[in-house]
């Protein structure tokens, strides 16, 4: 189960009527539980196109995507052999800007909009709204407020709650932390990590922040010019020679470790994955 890409190609029609490659020969497997994946790459490398294939918003030009056993390819979609809506319930996709989805008068109505579209009755949907609003770190008083009078960070949380209320097995977030201040960003990342840990759901995050990648992800996908150029763990990614060609930043943590080793000859016993580990190891080495 989960999501399987099999040799997927996709092209966009540009404004000048030329076709632009967005995905080239993508083969990829994503499990339906327990993964924490970050997807990185430059603007225009195909990240958003890739995730839009994961819940059948887009159909491959050639090749196929298997989503929870449903085969999505050009022929099946054209002849309406497959139902796309149930897939979108199983794979929840949160868009980059919450403004794209918020439209109801109250936060509660907006959150239950998704579940109701998938046939959940109103009472159950409201119960779910009360749960998910807490999951994203807001309290129940928010439910009766207008989504348009919230701050940027709060809007983002409400839009995520709206997807969580659909109870998807896989949750995908397109640049969820861009524009937030450091505290807001860390708080939101902790929310995702909690969802991943407690509910054992697969989480996929598109991000430009390499610190997020290094500290949180178990697996990293790197897109470059429509190709999937890396699929593996973050530690190997950042020791990879290609990293400069892919225009990626080095995470602060790794940068510091490398610098300490190069310039001061300080060798740490293991490669720390977060600040706390770094502190403790440094303490041991230096004292």
């Amino acid at each position: 189960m989960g999501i399987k890409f099999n040799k997927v190609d996709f092209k966009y029609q540009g404004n000048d009527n030329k076709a632009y490659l967005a995905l080239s020969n993508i083969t990829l497997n994503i499990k339906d539980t327990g993964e924490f994946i970050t997807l990185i790459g430059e603007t225009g490398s195909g990240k958003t196109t890739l995730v839009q294939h994961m819940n059948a918003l887009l159909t491959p030009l050639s090749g196929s995507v298997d989503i929870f056993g449903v085969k999505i390819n050009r022929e099946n979609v054209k002849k309406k052999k497959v139902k796309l809506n149930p897939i979108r319930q199983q794979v929840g996709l949160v868009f980059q800007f919450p403004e794209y989805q918020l439209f109801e008068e109250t936060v509660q109505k907006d959150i239950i909009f998704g579940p109701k579209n998938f046939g959940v009755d109103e009472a159950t949907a409201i119960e779910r709204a009360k749960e998910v609003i807490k999951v994203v770190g807001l309290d129940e008083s928010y439910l009766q407020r207008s989504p348009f009078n919230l701050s940027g960070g709060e809007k983002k949380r409400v839009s995520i709650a709206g997807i969580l209320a659909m109870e998807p097995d896989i949750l995908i977030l397109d640049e969820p932390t861009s524009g937030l201040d450091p505290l807001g960003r860390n708080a939101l990342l902790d929310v995702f990590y909690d969802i991943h840990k407690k509910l054992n759901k697969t989480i996929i995050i598109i991000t430009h922040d390499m610190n997020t990648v290094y500290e949180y992800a178990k697996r990293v996908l790197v897109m470059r010019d429509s190709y999937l150029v890396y699929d593996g763990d973050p530690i190997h990614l950042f020791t990879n020679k290609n990293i400069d060609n892919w225009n990626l930043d080095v995470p602060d943590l790794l940068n510091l470790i490398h610098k300490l080793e190069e310039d001061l000859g300080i060798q740490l016993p293991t490669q720390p994955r977060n600040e706390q580990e770094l502190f403790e190891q440094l303490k041991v080495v230096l004292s």
Partner: protein
Amino acid sequence: MDIIQMKNVSFSYQQDQPVLDGINLNIKKGEWVTILGHNGSGKSTLSKLLIGLLKPSQGEIIIDNITLSRETVHEARKHIGIVFQNPDNQFVGVTVRDDIAFGLENLQVPRNEMVERIDKYAHKVHMAEYLNKEPHNLSGGQKQRVAIAGILAMQTDIIIFDEATSMLDPKGRRMILDYMSQLNKEGVTIITITHDMKEAVLSDRIVVLKKGKIIKVDKAKSVLKDQETLEKSNLELLLPLKVLNYLEKENIDNEKVRSYLWELSLTR
């Protein structure tokens, strides 16, 4: 000489809820000042006041010896330019060329000179080969570079970068940062508004805002290390400085490592 003076400036949309409260700030010609603050700290309101898009409810603002008022604001804007956060919502022209021309047309620059300046500043931000491109064929970083060229062409003395890099990818962000330091070296007064500490490192001074008030103004070097102040405003220390503070707290006295970490944090 102070090119910008804010004297006891307050601003509120609604009574009793000041967005900015008693701001006093002087900025010297050629200085690079970073304004740090959490989401909703009032830092974007500050930039709108400086460019005269909002009028202070109290206090006065002087830009290049012009006291801002309804009558003088148009004159003052010839001295100060701003790059906003969203690349898409400040691109006025149908093409790159038209967009750089927009400000010049408003300043009534003669056509011959306009053509020259467009050419010059498009080169400067490395967008010369894109002059005929339309905005929907450009990346966010490219659009921001066009915005910079548009302001440079107007030859203002001051440029504000109001979270201008927050919607860009790392490569786009690095490029904009490079232009900032290059321009500052050429004598342009620069104000960056951000919550990214890496943008603050290169500046001369840092102003920290919290809930509409300035809680700290000082040389960049001393603010960068001030964990207490920064955390009050939802900000994070740069990693080497976090380590430095940790070592101090644990009484690990290794002067070599300490001075190295300090140096490291100040290089980008």
